[in-house]
């Protein structure tokens, strides 16, 4: 016909190729057009992709920062002081013995979809967090309530036996096992946030995919695309909506410090906040910039020693190791964000508590102790390992760097040989849990503003101990502090416990206190206050035009 046979053959065979090219073009156009959503008021780089946005099961900081925008509990934390202030509850009473808390809910509360929020919702949320079927990691936050732990363990099946009840549609009564000084702080913790019963009962585990998603907090979830963004838009039905400063906030899940910096510099992101997102090597330049902010944080970086492995069962050896670490050098050479060296575990800044001083840097004393323990000059000291998790794909290699420095310090001062063992994350956790290590890098961020969150870890039975250290006096002190209503006496118990921990027995060697960092231009972004919990309520943040 009019096309030669060969040409026809070619077009026949090539039609597959043309089809796929067409599909590709369609894909490009579609992606380009579909993303024509309105730009956000504020774009924040939040760290890792959130594993979940269900307040009852989230545990990590990136998740918590988003969830505080979507839901709320009885109590909020003041953005400047991080102290408890009224949230969904407008006032409360505490019984004289400290065991009964009565919360009075605001009467005008509604979900973003219009239904009323009542005391039953609050009770439902707390019971749900304790329900074994929800499998919440942080159910332990509620164990201070009567019968809560047994309900979670399945020993009690009837939820009405748990120490929280709705007395009327606006009153909640919580009954504790013993007086807990930080219970109000706990009520501000996301595990105790109020979640929409109507949606959860309808959709089960995938309730977060429902749209519109009812929200009890200042923002609603507009979009959640994995590894892309979480978009929050203002909830006009929030009781404090008048004070929500932005209409749309985008939170981007980016884990690489370099990419975050690139996006920030090119203007695609307004805020970068997560302590893992700091390019450490650039800190000396960054610290000079007015848009780079550092603040003290409630977190400590420390070394765990496995006291079940010889020779670390001898406290003199452990003290020697602690005394031989030049923490100033590590902080100045490797960290540079103004971190403070730590000789004790509980960071400074916790109210009503002054931590006791731990061991400092004293190489002579260290050598003496090591000799006393039977290893003069390091002779005969077995080779041991230092376990840490690997950094991958652009994350900062801080653990490796610290390990390398420690290796040299201990070699030069004490003459002992340490081997570095980098492990994949899960293998590292597994090794720690099985006590299959000699020394391990560790860190802990406090959940709430009280020494309990740090010191409670090292009691004999706590799952977070992971050093094999069991000490009855320590356990007794922590328990006594837990039951003591008077804050001064309580602080005294904690001080004694911490002295035991960081001066005498030394199953851990604190290295430094975390410094939180964030990037934002204070002339253009308002509403981010620095506090030690790194807690930044999203409703306060707004973008302003810089003054001309």
């Amino acid at each position: 016909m009019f096309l030669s046979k060969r040409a026809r053959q070619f077009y026949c065979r090539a039609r597959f190729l043309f089809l796929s090219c067409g599909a590709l073009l369609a894909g490009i156009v579609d992606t380009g057009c579909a993303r024509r959503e309105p730009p956000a008021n504020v774009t924040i780089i939040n760290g890792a992709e959130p594993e979940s946005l269900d307040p009852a099961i989230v545990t990590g900081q990136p998740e918590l920062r988003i969830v505080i925008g979507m839901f709320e509990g009885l109590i909020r934390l003041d953005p400047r002081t991080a102290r408890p202030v009224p949230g969904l509850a407008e006032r409360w009473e505490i019984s004289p013995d400290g065991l009964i808390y009565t919360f009075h809910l605001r009467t005008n509360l509604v979900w973003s979809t219009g239904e009323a929020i009542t005391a039953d919702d609050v009770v439902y949320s707390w019971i749900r967090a304790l329900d074994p079927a929800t499998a919440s990691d942080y159910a332990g936050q509620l164990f201070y309530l009567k019968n809560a732990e047994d309900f979670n363990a399945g020993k009690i099946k009837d939820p009405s036996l748990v120490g929280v009840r709705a007395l009327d549609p606006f009153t909640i009564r919580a009954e504790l096992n013993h007086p807990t000084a930080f219970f109000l702080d706990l009520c501000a913790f996301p595990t105790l946030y109020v979640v929409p019963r109507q949606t959860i009962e309808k959709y089960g585990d995938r309730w977060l995919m429902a749209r519109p998603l009812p929200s009890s907090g200042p923002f609603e979830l507009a979009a959640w695309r994995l590894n892309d963004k979480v978009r929050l838009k203002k909830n006009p039905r929030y009781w404090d909506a008048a004070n929500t400063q932005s209409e749309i906030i985008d939170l981007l899940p980016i884990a690489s410090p370099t990419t975050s910096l690139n996006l920030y510099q090119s203007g695609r992101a307004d805020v970068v906040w997560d302590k893992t997102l700091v390019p450490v090597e650039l800190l000396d330049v960054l610290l000079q910039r007015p848009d780079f902010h550092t603040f003290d944080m409630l977190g400590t970086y420390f070394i765990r020693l496995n006291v079940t492995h010889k020779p670390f069962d001898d406290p003199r050896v452990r003290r020697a190791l602690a005394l031989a670490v030049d923490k100033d050098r590590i902080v100045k050479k490797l960290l540079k964000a103004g971190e403070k060296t730590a000789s004790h575990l509980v960071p400074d800044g916790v109210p009503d508590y002054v931590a006791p001083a731990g061991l400092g840097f004293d190489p002579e004393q260290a050598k003496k102790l090591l000799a006393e323990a039977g290893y003069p000059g390091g002779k005969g000291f077995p080779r041991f390992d230092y376990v840490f998790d690997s950094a991958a794909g652009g994350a900062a290699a801080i653990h490796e760097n610290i390990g390398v420095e420690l290796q040299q310090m201990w070699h030069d001062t004490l003459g002992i040989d340490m081997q570095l063992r980098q492990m994949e994350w899960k293998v590292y956790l597994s090794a720690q849990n099985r006590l299959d290590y000699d020394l391990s890098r560790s860190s802990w961020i406090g959940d709430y503003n009280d020494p309990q969150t740090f010191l409670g870890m090292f009691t004999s039975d706590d799952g977070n101990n992971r050093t094999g250290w069991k000490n009855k006096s320590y356990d007794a002190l922590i328990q006594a502090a837990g039951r003591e209503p008077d804050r001064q006496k309580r602080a005294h118990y904690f001080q004694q416990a911490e002295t035991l921990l960081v001066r005498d027995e030394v199953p851990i060697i604190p290295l430094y206190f975390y410094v939180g960092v964030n990037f934002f231009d204070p002339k253009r972004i308002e509403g981010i206050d620095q506090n030690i919990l790194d807690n930044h309520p999203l409703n306060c943040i707004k973008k302003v035009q810089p003054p001309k």
Partner: protein
Amino acid sequence: MYFLKRLLFAVPLLVVISALAFALVHLAPGGPFDRERTPASPEIERNLKAKYHLDEPVWKQYFRYLGDLAHGDFGVSLKYRNHSVNDIIAQGLPVSMLLGGLAFCLATAIGLPAGFITAARRGRWEDYAGSLLALLAVCVPSFVIAPVLILIFAIKSNLLPVALWGSPWHMILPPVALGLYFAGKISRILREGMLQAAQSEFVTAARAKGLGENALLLRHAFRIALLPVVSYSGPMLADLLTGSFIVENIFQIPGIGVFLVNSVTNRDYTMLLGLSLLYAVLLIGLNLLVDLAYTWLDPRVKYE
């Protein structure tokens, strides 16, 4: 007939692959719910495991998984507990396919002409330059190319976006970073194939018939040389389509490539299995297509 047999054979193959992958992930130490913070009581951990049936013996878990699979349900991701694996794949696969498709187009658009020219001009400066560039593309790792490209085009000159995905401007650098390696590979394979074809009896006979040198190369050697390129394209497309981890990581592209590697690190069993099966299905399907293309390109090839 042959292809029908191949398709039928694919099903038991997939079952074997799923069993193998299942066994592999469960062998690795550590579980999906190991965290830095141990829960406050061992009961909490037990509840968590029970919810996702991780307390059952491995073979039982496997059969449960197969049963769900028969309904097309890949299960809930153990790391992103509010998303099912189906959700995640549905969100991420189109993006990865777009990225991979663009990279493939780029690789063929650069690689085929480059291979052709270096073969046609063998021994001259075009050959040396082209071969060197092709080899460079193959030898420089993509996690070096990508940041360098970002540095030059996005940071220093502000021409293109630094990262993320969403507008046509975002779709320039990532496919380049991804596709350069394959462009180099294709160029080398085509050159190799054409040089071999130029010596084959088929082309000698055509030359004897008196056809000119250029026409010769174009029509005969090229078609023959396409065979190894096509056979390489099968696995190459499968790799490209399931997203490159490195490029998606550096450019923060919401595809599924990142999930593949992260699911191993997180011990997210369901995610890992789902993606492995996806990869296997794609590979098998593409290999089938490749063999089909063989019969089009070279009528001598017959399958029994």
